[in-house]
């Protein structure tokens, strides 16, 4: 992953998502897509992630919608209740703020409140991430909110292969899944998945093994973890990287096993550090491995502020490779 040079078979992250939806739609006629501008007439999505799908599967199954996020998610919930597997696109993650009721009070709860009579196998795809110069209302990482909601799964991929496997699994999963993409990451390339490549939900991966400390992250954090690990290796520090892939419920077993081995950890995410997902992961590690740890688990995240527009402030505010290295050095003394 740290090697970003393009290889013959490399594909872009956005393309992997497109392939996953294509496969899901081919495999199961109950898979439908809903979202703003997602059909080809409207350009196949503002980031072209759904390009070509309405051509192949028709605009009955790939529907461009009005700017009505509550109606989009609600329609997906309703169709999911009676056997469809809708994939609703909420263009940017900040826009889930107008659809939280449908996501939290309905998608997440209808299975439970119906005593298991119904289920809501929908997937909500949404993208976000700073570094794009879009400012305060288009870049927030809000996964901590969703992770706190029982009944929702929250997923983020860090490379095209995982994106393919995880999105396919999300669509086929019988629970509501929030699938978080990274806007600047759409154009990052990586090895292409085999058509039958799968990644189960709820299982973290270990893309890099190491012995001195475990770096735990997901999505946009993973490339920075790799870069930091490369750099730290020069100082003789061996980092293991755990890519959560499913943020909630997360794979405690893999995390705890790794940290039990390295006896030190840093949790890394782009979201605001304060009250972020890193707090839960850190707490779980302390609760389970307190006496084995060499030092308290570190956390890296972005600063306590809305995402700033101006590049210089945005950079100072945002989590970085430097922050990871600094945190590792602090922990390992």
């Amino acid at each position, binding site marked *: 992953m740290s090697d970003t040079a393009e290889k013959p078979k490399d594909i872009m992250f956005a393309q992997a998502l497109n392939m996953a939806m294509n496969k899901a739609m081919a495999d199961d006629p109950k898979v439908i897509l809903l979202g703003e501008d997602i059909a080809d007439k409207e350009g196949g999505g503002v980031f072209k992630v759904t390009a070509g799908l309405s051509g192949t599967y028709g605009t009955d199954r790939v529907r461009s919608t009005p700017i009505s996020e509550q109606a989009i998610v609600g*329609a*997906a919930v309703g169709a999911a*209740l009676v056997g469809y597997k809708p994939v609703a696109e909420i263009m940017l993650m900040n826009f889930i703020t107008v659809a939280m009721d449908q996501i939290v009070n309905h998608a997440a709860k209808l299975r439970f409140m119906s*005593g*298991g009579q119904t289920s809501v196998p929908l997937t909500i795809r949404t993208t976000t991430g700073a570094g794009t110069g879009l400012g305060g209302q288009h870049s927030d990482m809000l996964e901590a909110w969703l992770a706190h909601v029982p*009944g929702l799964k929250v997923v983020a991929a860090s490379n095209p292969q995982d994106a393919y496997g995880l999105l396919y699994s999300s669509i086929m999963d019988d629970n509501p899944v929030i699938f978080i993409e990274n806007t600047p990451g759409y154009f990052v390339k990586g090895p292409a998945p085999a058509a039958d490549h799968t990644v189960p939900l709820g299982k973290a991966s270990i893309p890099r093994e190491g012995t001195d400390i475990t770096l735990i992250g997901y999505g946009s954090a993973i490339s920075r973890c790799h870069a930091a690990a490369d750099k730290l290796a020069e100082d003789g520090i061996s980092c293991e990287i755990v890519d959560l892939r499913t943020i909630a419920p997360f794979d405690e077993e893999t995390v705890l096993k790794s940290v039990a081995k390295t006896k030190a950890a840093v949790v890394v995410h782009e979201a605001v550090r304060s009250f972020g997902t890193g707090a839960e992961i850190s707490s779980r590690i302390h609760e389970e491995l307190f006496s084995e740890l060499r030092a308290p688990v570190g956390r890296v995240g972005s600063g306590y502020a809305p995402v700033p527009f101006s590049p210089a402030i945005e950079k100072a505010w945002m989590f970085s490779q430097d922050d990871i290295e600094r945190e590792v050095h602090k922990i390992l003394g």
Partner: protein
Amino acid sequence: MASTDMVDKDVLVDIFTRADLIMQSDIKFRQMIGAGQLQIVYYPVRGQEVVSSAMMAAVNQDDYLVTIYRGLHDQLAKGIPSKELWAEFAGKMTGTCKGKGGPMHITHPATGVMVTTGIVGSGIPIANGLGLASQLEKDGKVTVCCFGDGATNIGAFHEGLNMAQIWKLPVIFLCQNNLYGEHTHMRDTTGSASIKQRGEGLGMRSVQVNGNDASAMYTAAKEAVDHARAGNGPTLIEAMTFRFHGHLLGDTSHYIPKEEMEQAKKDDPMPILRQQLLDLQISEADVAAIEAKNAAIIEEAAQFALDSDYPPGDEYRIDVLDVEIAA
């Protein structure tokens, strides 16, 4: 509101049978709560029986229903089994939702009761999804989506009606206009003169009807159902009605002028409908038999609810996800 000829005798009997079950159930719930036999927050439906009975008489059991916290009348009219319904209200394991949902979240797919929501307006976008599924599936089903006058002030109403309209979804939006949202009169919250006007503003086929008149309500419902089944899209029905026992049990309706309440009770749809049956030469004995049968259903259901067990505590780990959550 156009006046309508009276509908067929059989239909009226059908509507009455449903409406009487609702009325008696509502009375019984209020009695049992008053007597301390049930400890629940209860949203009375007395006064609105005919609206949903006439509506549901116009659809099939496998058509879908989405309703709200004040949904007892809709659920019963749709044909939900009383025993499981009562048990759910009582929080028992034998309830429709194993006691996990409760009165505000009744679900029973076997009778088409797909969602009951406690969030004002939120059923509307979900109803569209059911309608979308039917449209894609070409299964000929319609979805009835019930909500109140107050709900038409919230964003989901607007987004939902518009989406249904542009996609010609087979959904009937049944606004049961009882003039009050909690304690606030519609005139203080609604810029338009009617809810129908809002539907028209969204380009939707919209009708206003006296929901308490069984024939008028049934006719409006049937037309909307036929329209939807023919693939012509949704209808907004604004059914004028009233609620006699406040927003929730215990609410004294202090905010309703005395004369308004008195007039509404004079126009109580239930005795009117009953009299219509008698006028159509249905014998008092036949009507009484319907009532007796309903009473027996309710007695059995209430007893079943009381006799059933509560779910075990650790049921909370089941049905959160598709797999059980570890303790």
